[in-house]
């Protein structure tokens, strides 16, 4: 019994102790519960919300790229996809079989789908086919009851309706690479694309837009249960380019007949680029859906460089197109006057070296205008020797050469304007006098891109103001687009009389029978242009070749042929209202619009062709072939209205050549008026009535037949005529002056052909801008 008691007592004691301990630990638990559920409650509340609320980004729509008139150049096309959700279909294989009867599902696709089914979570959709047409979507949609688990999804894919024409300017988009990920979650969305090249890249941030968010309630495996909230983002902004799609199309068409070339047309007063074409080109739509590796390799390997934008990246020796800068440098330095004559015997000796002029026998005694007109090398050897390379370089920098212009297209190259210091620094050798001579004709170390030459021409044509080129109407400021404010460009400080000499010389290049581009002149006075041809050698002409005669272009391998260049500008007079008729329809611009300010387009032409200016030679030596001017009626009811004879006109020109520019211009206008009144001359438009209409119709047909391309017939209209519907659509525009530059690898035609196309380009451009 005592044993029992003792045991019981011990037990009781200990049992109570144990109970106390157990209850104590329960108390600890209660305390822990209090801690979690009261003290730290907010923290866990937040966490539980984070658990169940998933923030999804809604991708924004990318902004478009538009041309000058608002035509879309880069748009977002809906990309219809068919997806299959394994959870909703019992047997993925059977569903795919059923789908295959409506849409082709390839073997590789099938394998990929089955792999994804095994790997991914069951409620995640798996893409079966992308980029479906609407018909395909419809066909599948009608049969959805037989296709369990098949759903539709729509994304956006980038499309370039103009394809190759704008490949270099607009660029293309691609998914962001590792290096581009900045932590912005938008970039990690599967459909997201960023600009890789061209305008798409430069204006990328503004075109992206801002993503919206949608709050979804999700469960632990991430399956969305329902949408709690949605905030829509902002779509990207549209970028309006200054480029004219019609003009660009025309340029590409012409360039496509050559091996490789580039052309750029810009406005002289504002610096807006109207066309920028580089040939060969590629189709940017290939990049949007993932370019096939074979095509990419092909593009990379092509020696003609389809992926480079030759307009801004192609550096060439400017050749004779550089001579105007040398002339201006000489005038400013005071080492020469416009009427000083230098004798060109065909070569010039400097020490032991003989520097040749392109013309074997030389040009004789030429002054500045004639030297530019006939592109005399010896004159410029002498001039550059007098001026010195540093002053030439300084002058060329004022005209935009040798530096980056800060344009809104990537890939710009700065070209090269050598100086003494530069040669010391880079080559470690002192500058030689011979280098100056060679630089004076635009060869040697001198390099320029077509855009820079166009800017140079524009700056000359607009009266010596530092116009800056740009490709888009807006510019980026703080991540969004702001319209550019048109400010008058600052003056370069070149005296007007110097510029006048040079401009007159450039005009005579095209319009004077002795000019190297005479064959390419445009007869319509409103579209008259001035310019300069140039040829840049890529290899030295050997003594043997000099002795036996130059090789024809087609005998030389393609990459050894010289570049052929042409820079030009519209030299139309101030008074001209310059309306022009569009090719297909005959509406006119309002002549009622004030022909006040001129806007010129500067074009620089590049062309890679064969011999050094044989066309120029021909044009200089032989009398110009007797051509019928465009639109001239030689048969039909109006043939009695032939205009004044060629000889008379030539006489008139010679007489005009003796007058100063103002007087000549006045005289020209008077002559035109007289011709119009007397029923002679080129002004068909001055004739009213049925005869006039018939004439015009005939003239248009002739022109179209002749040119092939949508060339124009300019119909000068005296003020007061009817304005057509086109004009009613758009407010009267200021008349524009252009400058252009084109280059190509021609196999046969001379500079004139390109100058002509530059002229017709300008004509068609002004027309397309009117319409």
């Amino acid at each position, binding site marked *: *019994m005592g*044993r*029992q*008691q*003792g*045991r*019981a*007592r*011990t*037990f*009781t004691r*200990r*049992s*109570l102790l*144990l*109970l106390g301990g*157990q*209850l104590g*630990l*329960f108390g*600890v*638990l*209660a305390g*822990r*519960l*209090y801690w*979690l*559920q*009261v003290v*730290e*409650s907010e*923290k*866990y*509340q937040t*966490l*539980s919300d984070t*658990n*169940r609320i998933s923030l999804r980004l809604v991708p924004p729509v990318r902004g478009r790229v538009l041309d000058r008139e608002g035509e879309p150049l880069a748009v977002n096309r809906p990309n219809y996809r068919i997806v299959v959700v394994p959870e909703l279909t019992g047997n993925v294989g059977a569903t795919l079989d059923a789908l295959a009867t409506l849409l082709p599902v390839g073997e590789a696709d099938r394998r990929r789908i089955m792999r994804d089914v095994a790997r991914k979570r069951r409620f995640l959709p798996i893409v079966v086919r992308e980029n479906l047409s609407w018909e395909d979507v419809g066909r599948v949609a009608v049969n959805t009851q037989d296709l369990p688990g098949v759903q539709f999804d729509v994304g956006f894919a980038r499309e370039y309706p103009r394809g190759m024409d704008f490949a270099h300017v607009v660029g293309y988009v691609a998914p962001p690479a590792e290096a581009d990920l900045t932590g912005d979650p938008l970039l990690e969305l599967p459909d997201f694309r960023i600009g890789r090249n061209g305008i798409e890249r430069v204006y990328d941030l503004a075109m992206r837009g801002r993503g919206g968010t949608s709050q979804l*309630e*999700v*469960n*632990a*495996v991430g399956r969305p*249960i329902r949408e709690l909230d949605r905030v829509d983002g902002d779509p990207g902004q549209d970028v309006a380019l200054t480029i004219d799609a019609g003009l660009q199309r025309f340029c590409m068409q012409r360039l496509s007949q050559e091996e490789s070339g580039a052309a750029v047309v810009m406005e002289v007063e504002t610096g807006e680029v109207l066309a920028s074409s580089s040939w060969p080109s590629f189709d940017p739509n290939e990049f949007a859906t993932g370019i096939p590796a074979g095509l990419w390799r092909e593009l990379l390997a092509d020696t003609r460089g389809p992926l480079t934008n030759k307009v801004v990246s192609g550096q060439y020796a400017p050749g004779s197109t550089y001579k105007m800068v040398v002339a201006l440098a000489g005038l400013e330095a005071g080492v020469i006057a416009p009427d000083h004559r230098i004798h060109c015997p065909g070569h010039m000796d400097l020490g032991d070296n003989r520097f040749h002029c392109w013309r074997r026998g030389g040009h004789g005694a030429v002054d500045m205008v004639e030297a530019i007109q006939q592109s005399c090398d010896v004159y410029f050897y002498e001039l550059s020797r007098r001026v010195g390379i540093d002053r030439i370089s300084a002058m060329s920098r004022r005209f935009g050469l040798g530096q980056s212009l800060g344009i809104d297209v990537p890939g710009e190259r700065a070209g090269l304007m050598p100086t003494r210091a530069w040669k010391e620094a880079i080559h470690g050798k002192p500058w030689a006098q011979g280098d100056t001579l060679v630089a004076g004709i635009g060869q040697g170390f001198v390099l320029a891109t077509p855009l820079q030459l166009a800017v140079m021409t524009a700056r000359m044509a607009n009266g010596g103001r530092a116009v800056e080129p740009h490709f888009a109407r807006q510019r980026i400021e703080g991540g969004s687009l702001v319209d550019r404010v048109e400010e008058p460009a600052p003056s370069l400080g070149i005296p007007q009389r110097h510029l006048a000499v040079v401009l007159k010389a450039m005009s005579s290049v095209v319009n004077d029978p002795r000019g190297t581009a005479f064959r390419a002149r445009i007869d319509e006075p409103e579209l008259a242009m001035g310019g300069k041809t140039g040829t840049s050698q890529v290899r030295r002409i050997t003594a043997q070749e000099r002795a036996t005669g130059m090789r024809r272009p087609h005998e030389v391998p393609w990459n050894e042929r010289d570049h052929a260049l042409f820079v030009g500008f519209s030299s139309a007079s101030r008074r001209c209202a310059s309306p022009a008729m569009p090719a297909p329809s005959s509406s006119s611009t309002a002549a009622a619009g004030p022909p006040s300010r001129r806007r010129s387009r500067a074009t620089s032409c590049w062309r890679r062709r064969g011999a050094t200016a044989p066309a120029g030679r021909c044009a200089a030596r032989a009398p110009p072939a007797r051509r019928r001017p465009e639109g001239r009626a030689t048969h039909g009811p109006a043939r009695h209205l032939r205009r004044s004879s060629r000889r008379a006109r030539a006489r008139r020109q010679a007489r005009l050549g003796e007058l100063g520019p103002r007087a000549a211009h006045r005289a020209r206008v008077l002559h035109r008026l007289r011709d119009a009144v007397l029923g002679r001359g080129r002004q068909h438009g001055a004739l009213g009535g049925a005869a006039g209409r018939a004439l015009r119709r005939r003239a248009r047909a002739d022109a179209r037949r002749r040119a092939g391309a949508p060339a124009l017939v300019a119909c000068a209209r005296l003020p007061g005529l009817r304005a057509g519907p086109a004009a009613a659509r758009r407010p009267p525009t200021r008349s524009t002056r252009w400058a252009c530059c084109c280059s190509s690898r021609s196999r046969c035609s001379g500079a004139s052909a390109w100058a002509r196309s530059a002229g017709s380009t300008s004509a068609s451009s002004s027309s397309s801008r009117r319409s």
Partner: protein
Amino acid sequence: MGAQRWIDLGFFQFQPTELMKLGLVLVLARHFHAMSQEQVRKPHRLAWPVLLGVVPALLVAKQPDLGSALLLLTLTGALLFLAGVRLWKFAAVVALVLAALAALPLAWSRLRDYQKQRVLVFLDPEKDPLGSGYHIIQSKIALGSGGIWGKGFMQGTQSYLQFLPEKQTDFIFTMYAEEFGLAGGIVLLALYAAILVYGTMIALVARSQFGRLLASGIMVAFWVYAFINMAMVTGLIPVVGEPLPFVSYGGSALVSLLVSFGLVINVYVSTATRRSGGPATRAGPEPGRTRRAGRRASVEKAKPLSTSPGRLGISPARSRNRVGA
């Protein structure tokens, strides 16, 4: 994890650990019932009970089922404690445990990977938020977001949205606390405490050592389950996967619990019948009666006891209070 905890008998599965638990308590109780107090004090007499406890624990730990092994060891320890083993021996054991902790690095390498993970993750659940820490993190989030009054029945977002794994077994308390808050948690704790107190009272008034040890052993087992589960769920101890008694889903745990409570009731009933005159002389209430019926019956029968001061050395007032409560 490949734990071999279940034996598949074709039409149902059962866990031998549950049987072991019961068996251990019964055997140890019987063993100490036969030993006197002096015998209990001798160390050499303890070899057999310790062996009885430790060997199954080791076997179970090899399953591997760490939780049940710990439970068996705790049971053994508790029963030894209650049987009257000298305290200094426990101190010695504690010293041993400390020495083992000192040798932790050695033991660390013997732990399996997932057990190591469990300890590491326990110390910092954020280390593996999507893997093994996931349970603890989710459990704490769900618990904490319950607040004082909870989110409401069936409104628990974490459990409803499947963030909480094992919500019907190991983490049932979390779901309950998320939906009913601190108030609900305290209520459940109070209920468990009440059962504990009742059970211990039954043990205290039992007339034989066997009865006492049986009842308190079962109560200790019950308490260990409840405590381990709730502590695990609130992040106080590493996850060991013990169910919450009477709340968690699971057939075999419930069966063994009910069996053990049946034994406790039996202890009480036999106490009552013994007091009122022994089982042989009169027909006492059947053992299978419900507890409530048994209590009322024993209240009536206990009244005569109040007059005689307990042969068991229990003061009448205390006994009355306890029994009649």
